[in-house]
């Protein structure tokens, strides 16, 4: 998983920097100077990194533990971790879809309650009280106090509200 993610990143950066350089070529020098100065070495370095993995030098890669960053849970079997990652991604994407379709004021309590009930398997009372607390915090601070403009969801717009 480690080397696959690495390869995906190297190829992704190769694609992005390659596109950045090609697109910048058509611009006046004022606009293209910086993208070219950065894009060309990034393309060369990412190609080198991708080749490093593809030519089987992955074994000599930097030890994962030496990176100055945290590591995703190591004590969970890979298959289980993949399943839970997909599950978490689904919830995150679902929350975003709910915000777009229903708007923040409805999506926030709906998501919190459903997550606590279905994913957290919490009791009805705890789920309801916790959802209410989060909603009061959201509504009181962001809507009433700071007057942040939360647009209504697409569904409300389609229904003509």
């Amino acid at each position, binding site marked *: 998983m*480690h*080397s696959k*993610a*690495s390869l995906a*990143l*190297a190829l992704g*950066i190769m694609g*992005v*920097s390659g596109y*950045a350089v090609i*697109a910048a070529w058509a*611009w006046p020098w*004022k*606009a293209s*100077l*910086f*993208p070219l*100065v*950065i894009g060309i070495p*990034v393309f060369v*370095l990412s190609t*080198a*990194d991708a080749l490093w993995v593809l030519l089987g030098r992955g074994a000599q*890669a*930097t030890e994962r*533990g*030496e*990176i*100055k*960053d*945290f*590591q*995703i*849970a190591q*004590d*969970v079997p890979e298959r289980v*971790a993949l399943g*839970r*990652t997909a599950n*978490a991604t689904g*919830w*995150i*994407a679902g*929350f*975003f879809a709910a*915000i777009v379709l229903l708007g*923040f004021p409805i999506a926030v309590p709906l*998501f*919190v309650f459903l*997550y*606590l009930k279905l*994913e*957290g*398997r*919490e009791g009805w009372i705890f789920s309801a009280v*916790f959802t209410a607390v*989060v909603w009061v915090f*959201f509504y009181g601070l962001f809507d009433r106090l700071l007057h*942040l403009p*939360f647009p209504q969801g697409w569904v409300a717009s389609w229904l003509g509200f």
Partner: protein
Amino acid sequence: MIEALFEGLFLVLQWKPLAFMALGIVLGFWVGLLPGLGGATTLALMLPFVYAMQPVEAFAFLLGMHSVAATTGDITSVLFGVPGEAASAATILDGHAMAKKGEAGRALGAALTSSLVGAIVGAFALAIAIPMVRPLVLTFGSPELFMLAIVGIAFIASLSAPGPRGMLRGFLAGGLGLLCATVGQDPQAGIARYTFDILYLWQGLDLVAVLVGIFAIPEIIDLAIRRTSIAGALPAGRISKGAWEGVKDTFRHFWLTIRCSLIGTFIGIMPGMGGAVAQWMAYGHATQSARTAEERKGFGAGDVRGVLGPGAANNSKEGGSLIPTIAFGVPGSTAMAILLGGFFLLGLVPGPDMLTKHLPVTFSMVWTIVIANIVTVLACFLLLDHLAKLTTVRGTVLIPAILVLVFIGSFTSNHHYGDILVTLVFGGIGYLMVIGGWPRAPFVLGLVLGKIAENYLYISVARYEAAWLTRPVVLILFAIAVAVILYPLLQRRKPAHA
């Protein structure tokens, strides 16, 4: 001068400035905690309220609020891995790792104490540097500032992942950050770059939306995979007890804290660099303070020095960035640009007058930074027990609450769904970087520095053509960048020959 220093203190200690400072501290405390609501945004929102205030009251209110937001931004970074402020992101790497080891109290104690030391160093620098800083700022033209940005990226790229392969990835991550910073309308020719005819992208990628995504989403997924609390199965009793240990850590590594404070002050003085750069530079320096490769491995896994460095620099840069704002009317950061607006609203003109006629007002700003930080740190220590216990709350309860904060924090950047989409896309990239073993720090520094570096490069080439490369300070900075790259490689080879 001494007389003006004390006059400034007496001005701040009157009841009205103190009351406005307290109000600013309360606002700044919450603004710092909430992801997305930045100190600069809040300064802008509060600016109209200073019309009716006296200058000392207005600066007590605005500076009290702003300097506190930088301190409390570290709290969410440590506890949840979500940056409360763009300038608090570096604290996540080791601060949140410590929270996962059950050392949230120690990490918070270290972050808060180093913040206080940093704020005092920054304020002290502001007090003594005003007459001396002019030649320093004038030595650094666009070519030198561009090279300073390159040194910053070289610094963090070479130190965040050891070995040639790690360094390669560090530079690639930094390069990707720089490229991402070019998205949007270019400032020189007005060309819409990499916008794909999407209007939202014309203003570029929002820093807060990207930061929240790249740091918070992988943490949330990690929490969902582990299905435990942030501190895992560690007993709750241990967690808050380490706060005093964190305070002692600050004094155990006192010179590192002071050096990082000075780095923050220096970056603060440089126009346009800002706190987000200062913390990563300080983190790089803290990493470099490790004597052996073995010791260096602890960084990113919960080394307290990785908390002390960014914590100190993050707060000391406030004093630093006030120096060019007050002395020359050149703001050192976005927040200082907004504060500059406050000067004009109050009828004050930055420049020589602030160092002569209005010197007590200038010193009142120094005292405001010091007093506001002392009050905040004391208040935070009182709340520390409760704050640290949040790391023992079940992950399934925390995840929806954190996600709500992440999405709202991201959305409030521009009030556009595009912000959330940016957060999700960069959350995916951040996740890939974490599982692939790529360092995220150089990417963030590249993104933060991109616009500034491009601007300085353009001015350097337009003004000096290729001759800018031969300027003495540029050559010195280039040599430093090369040394920063080579030093870890040479240090790594040492044990092999031993």
